[in-house]
């Protein structure tokens, strides 16, 4: 199954969609078949049916949808580091082991997610067509030359950081969707999938921290009241939009006391909490730039 066909489906308005009153129930009903080994062969068809039936924005994606979304992000990251490591004279010797460690993790994530998707009877998404210049396939985007020797600091690391920080946000944004599939998935599969997603999420955050240390910005995202993006790269403002949030669980955390004051600064309040992005928000950021958008 090609994930981008799904996206295309979601982008369309479905005039035949008559079961929108409870799309979540429809989604869960379909995913129930994943739990049953005898029904595994029918899964891809069930999934396709489900997607067509519940394209409403309120629909909760199935576990396989979520895993394929994660896999697509990992393809993007793994391919990026594979190209970077292969590029002649791009990565300075002092940083090569850092980048290779991250490369290994991302490729391991691809393998792991592929295996999990297969094990629950799903069909892994195919590798998306990518353009690391963010040029939607033109190879002529704003990050053109990012794999060229001499552009490591100016381009490669900036794309790396955007990918890592966005990856953290993307995984975080799926936690509640995985929870919404708990009853349908069953306790064991739920625990496995959620824990794995949280564990990959933590590794992406470790990577983001390391890349930030190489670049020389704070290892955490230190936003201002009006701007989430602390990287100084205006092109990725959208990837950090919302990181300036200081309201957590209904509490404005700047009103809470700090070490030496009765309130907390915006810098600390934003750095202490990372913010999620929804699947739609992430695709809006990637499709048509880093991931080539299929022409209809």
């Amino acid at each position, binding site marked *: 199954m090609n994930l981008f066909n799904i996206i295309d489906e979601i982008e369309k308005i479905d005039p035949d969609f008559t079961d929108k009153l409870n799309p979540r129930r429809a989604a869960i009903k379909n995913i129930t078949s994943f739990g049953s080994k005898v029904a595994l062969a029918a899964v891809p068809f069930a999934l396709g049916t489900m997607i067509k039936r519940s394209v409403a924005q309120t629909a909760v994606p199935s576990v396989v949808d979520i895993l394929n979304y994660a896999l697509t992000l990992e393809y993007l990251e793994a391919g990026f580091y594979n190209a970077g490591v292969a590029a002649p004279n791009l990565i300075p010797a002092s940083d090569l082991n850092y980048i290779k460690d991250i490369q290994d993790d*991302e490729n391991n994530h691809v393998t792991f997610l592929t295996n999990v998707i297969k094990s629950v009877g799903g069909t892994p998404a195919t590798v998306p067509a990518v353009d690391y210049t963010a040029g939607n396939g033109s190879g002529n985007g704003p990050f053109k030359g990012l794999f060229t020797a001499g552009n490591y600091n100016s381009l490669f690391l900036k794309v790396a950081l955007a990918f890592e920080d966005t990856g953290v946000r993307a995984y975080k944004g799926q936690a509640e969707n995985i929870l919404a599939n708990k009853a349908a998935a069953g306790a064991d599969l739920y625990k496995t999938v959620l824990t*794995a997603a949280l564990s990959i999420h*933590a*590794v992406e*955050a470790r990577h983001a921290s390391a890349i930030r240390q190489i670049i020389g910005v704070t290892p955490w995202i230190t936003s201002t009241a009006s701007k989430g993006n602390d990287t100084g790269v205006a092109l990725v403002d959208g990837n950090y939009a919302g990181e300036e949030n200081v309201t*957590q669980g209904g509490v404005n955390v700047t009103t*809470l006391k700090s070490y030496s004051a009765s309130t907390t600064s915006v810098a*600390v309040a934003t750095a202490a909490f990372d913010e999620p992005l929804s699947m739609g928000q992430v695709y809006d950021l990637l499709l048509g730039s880093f991931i080539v958008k299929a022409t209809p």
Partner: protein
Amino acid sequence: MKTESQENITGANMARRSFLRYAGIGAASVGLLATAACHKDHKVITSNGVDIGATGDLAILNYAYALEQLEAAFYTQVILTPYSGISSSEKEMLTSIRDHEILHREFFKAALGVNAIPGLTPDFSSIDFTNRAATLGAAKAFEDTGVKAYDGAGYLIGGGVYLTLAGKIVSVEARHAALISNLLVPGSFAASDQVDGTNGLNKSASIAEVLAIANKYLKTKVSASNYNYVAA
């Protein structure tokens, strides 16, 4: 260290109410939680400390609150008595981490309100705060344990808002962990002691595993009797 369990300002109660409302818990449920808080099974004061109480989100939030209290107290001490040879950059970073952990602690305290376990008294007598390797080694243990704790307890959380909040915090703990690891051994930000070399997953740990480690640094022992762990 002075506990702050008696400090129960109006602001914290207000914050808790809005927190619970945001979490989608209606007025009736709030009453229920308040009742549960008074039940003898909840946040029990034990002979050697406290218990996080009956299974459920309040217990997991109190578990997180306990860990954040420990981390905040640790970094507070690190900055009060900086290790020999600390660089200005290291001090700045560790001060930021202290401030993040204090905010996490204050956030859980405000969110839990009357359901919060008391302030815990740490015991850092095993840590030589004058020594860089000892201090950063302890910091690494706290951060790595924190990441494993959130990752390992996520599936026990029932409320979506709480789960996302845990996610918002654990990635920051992972950012800390990567920094501290790199300060100790450059390039060890995702080393195999914490990240599985085959599947690229961060390790996770159970409540029992985590509290056994945390209690080494606590005078007030934290138990989780309903999650198969009672502190010795």
